[in-house]
């Protein structure tokens, strides 16, 4: 196991299945609720469950960002938009192409599941257990996954600095665009 982890323990398995089932059930509720406000609340449940899965994947920073941005900001924005448009009662009906679209989505999901199960992934742990990585590389993998946040910080402002700066320009453009769109004339 990369990183001194407890990934193999029963507790982690139980936590994973609880998070997986709750995120999928909540996502299903989002597309099935006719009441938009309740759908938005179930969307928050799904986001929190996925944030828990990020913690299981040793991505604590992504989990924190997920809680701050999705649960904190995007959900509030969506709830405000629902309240401002006042369409809570009429809800979110599905249109007449619901069944063919459902079949299409189910086919896509089954294809993706088949591909992910059938492919021979190059699993990091197996390479380490087989001794195919050098001792230094193994130690480095353990070091990276024991605390990823300093490495992410270094990558963001060194290797991905151009994308990092462009992202801030994109956010600025989005703010100005949103303000210009909803400005009272």
């Amino acid at each position: 196991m990369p990183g001194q982890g407890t990934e193999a323990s029963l507790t982690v398995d139980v936590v994973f299945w609880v998070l997986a089932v709750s995120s999928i059930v909540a996502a299903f509720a989002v597309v099935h609720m006719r009441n938009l406000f309740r759908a938005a609340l179930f969307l928050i449940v799904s986001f929190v469950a996925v944030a828990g899965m990020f913690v299981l994947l040793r991505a604590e920073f992504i989990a924190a960002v997920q809680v701050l941005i999705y649960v904190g900001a995007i959900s509030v924005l969506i709830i405000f938009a629902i309240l401002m448009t006042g369409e809570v009662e009429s809800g979110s009906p599905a249109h007449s192409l619901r069944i063919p679209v459902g079949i299409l989505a189910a086919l896509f999901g089954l294809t993706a599941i088949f591909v992910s199960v059938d492919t021979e992934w190059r699993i990091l742990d197996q390479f380490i257990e087989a001794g195919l990585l050098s001792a230094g590389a193994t130690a480095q993998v353990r070091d990276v996954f024991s605390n990823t946040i300093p490495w992410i910080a270094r990558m963001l402002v060194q290797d991905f600095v151009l994308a990092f700066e462009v992202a801030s320009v994109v956010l600025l453009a989005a703010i100005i665009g949103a303000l210009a769109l909803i400005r009272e004339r």
Partner: protein
Amino acid sequence: MSLENFLIVSAVLFAIGLYGALSKRNAIAVLMSIELMFNAVNLAAVAFSRYTLPAALASRPSAGGDQMVHLLLTGQIFSIFIITIAAAEVALGLAIVIAIYRSRSTVFVTDATQMRR
């Protein structure tokens, strides 16, 4: 649990989001479904970053240092940028929905047909 478990959860979440995005008439419900799909993609990116061995590392098993960190954590960096773009997208999308609601008093995507005429 293994990589496959996370990928299956991600695929199921993406399929549910795809169904919602294509079948809903309310534009806000469509945006919520798109957020579900973004979430599924993030989960897959982080799971790949955690479990798989990068091809460049497999061909040069003795690589080390910053090069290797770079290879191991690219999935997490990708998901940070996906979250950023998703935030910008949902802000603009909701602004457009509210602008349509002001001019046409509807939030149904099937009713916004100005450009067809």
